[in-house]
């Protein structure tokens, strides 16, 4: 049955896109989860609707307009919340709603029915063209280059931003770089799962890795496996059961995350079972 699926050219492209988007999203998701930027991802994806609508109304490339919009709103949200006068949550909440409202207002000026709009909101991976694959590959190279070059610094900043700043690391540029990477990643995922579901890909893979591992290397690998396996598996499921690809992918990933919750990490077991190891504090404690 799967070999029949792969007989179609559009399905081959869709599967390739699913694997690439899965890999890209789970890499970015690693830092989204560690820095707790999930809601920012949701905000960026929804704000992008404004830019996409600008494209649809003016006849410019909707993807390009959406990317510029997403990028600018990500940087604006980051900048406003870093100034510390408003909570990040509040700023995202406003951008999220305003971006969507702007998009809806623009779209209402269009006469007739635009099937593209439904695809934009919920994704249509079966319409992936070779050009889309090339854009996806270019974004992937840029984002993976950024993350692999600054991986250790991004990790250190996620752990303790204050110490990283005092140590002289370029915290703000790296933060904005990460936001830009998020915005671009979301835009290329929109083709796959749509605006409404894109942010799920920036959370679920890493959340699964985070559940399963206490070591960042293992978490990274598990996140990657969940991302690639989830999006490829979801696509196959959508083909087999005739489901929308975006919904099938997100549901399948959520299922993987759900399964990970049944795994009990070793540390919890150790605490329940018997004494903890002597860590050097012991002998003195006995004397007090």
């Amino acid at each position, binding site marked *: 049955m799967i070999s029949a699926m792969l007989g179609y050219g559009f399905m081959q492209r869709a599967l390739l896109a699913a694997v690439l988007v899965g890999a890209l999203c789970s890499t970015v998701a690693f830092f989204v989860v560690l820095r707790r930027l999930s809601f920012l991802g949701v905000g960026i994806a929804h704000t992008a609707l404004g830019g996409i609508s600008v494209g649809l109304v003016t006849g410019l490339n909707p993807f390009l307009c959406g990317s510029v919009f997403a990028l600018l709103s990500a940087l604006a949200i980051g900048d406003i919340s870093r100034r510390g006068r408003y909570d990040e949550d509040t700023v995202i909440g406003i951008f999220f709603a305003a971006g969507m409202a702007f998009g809806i207002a623009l779209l209402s000026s269009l006469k007739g029915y635009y099937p593209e709009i439904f695809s934009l909101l919920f994704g249509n991976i079966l319409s992936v063209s070779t050009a889309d694959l090339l854009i996806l590959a270019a974004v992937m190279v840029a984002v993976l280059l950024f993350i692999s070059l600054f991986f250790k610094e991004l990790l250190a900043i996620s752990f303790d931003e204050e110490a990283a700043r005092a*140590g002289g690391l370029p915290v703000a540029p790296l933060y904005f770089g990460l936001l830009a990477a998020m915005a671009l990643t979301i835009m290329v995922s929109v083709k796959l799962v749509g605006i409404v579901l894109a942010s799920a890909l920036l959370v679920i893979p890493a959340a699964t890795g985070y559940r399963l591992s*206490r070591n960042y290397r293992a978490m990274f690998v598990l996140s990657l496996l969940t991302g690639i396996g989830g999006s490829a598996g979801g696509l196959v499921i959508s083909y087999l059961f005739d489901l929308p690809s975006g919904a099938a992918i997100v549901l399948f990933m959520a299922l993987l995350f759900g399964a990970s919750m049944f795994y009990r990490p070793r540390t919890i077991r150790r605490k329940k079972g018997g004494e903890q190891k002597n860590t050097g504090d012991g002998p003195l404690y006995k004397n007090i």
Partner: protein
Amino acid sequence: MPFLNEKSPAVTSESLSVRQNAHTVLEEITFQVAPGEMIGVIGPNGGGKTTLLRTLLGLIRPFAGRSTLLGCPSARLGPVRAKIGYIPQKRTHDRRFPLSAADVVQTGLYSPETLLRPIRRPQRERCREMLEMVDALPLAERSFGDLSGGEQQRVLLARALVRRPLLLLLDEPAAGLDPKAQYLFMEKLRQLRQRFALTILLVSHDLASLAAYVDRILCINRTMHIHGEPQQVLQSSALKKIYRCSYDLLRMAASGEDENR
């Protein structure tokens, strides 16, 4: 390099004032720290101690006045940052953050010089040496979030030391620890201070536990109130009447308890 001059003070603060949201948080703070000295900065919670450290580190821009660390102005610390170890005020670390104790120590090596450069084996060895120095080598592979409060603070001390600093800025490093862990931490600090000839500026709201370790004490509650050797500060009869921060001290001295717990 400015920090190589042994005679000049390690820390200077001249009429330093800081305002945040139209409130004056620090006012006219003036003091100097000589190389090798250990200074305790005490004062009530919200008295501006953390702000003082962050301003010295150039993380907050002062409203007026100037400060230097190791001879460099706080606003442009540049290369001397590599010679400063810092333990920020304790936050609730994400208990599941996927870093081991050794990974955490390694983050202390990162600086603008290590950007785009991998951390090599000799540097990783140094991380392990530092863990050994704070008696935490057996914890190296344990998840940082699983460690006890005292163990975590010693690992963070190792992270500060792995830079081979001349100056340590410690923000409430022993707060929230039980008396045994506090004692272990302070004793370890005393040993390491002698071994590496460190200059230390240590912030605490707990004068009683500091007095035995520091050379001088600064008492700060927005402005600088007392500045002197621990015995002078402790015996200052004016303390209770004039300075709010004495209440912490007196209550703790009477009960032997950390008021925060």
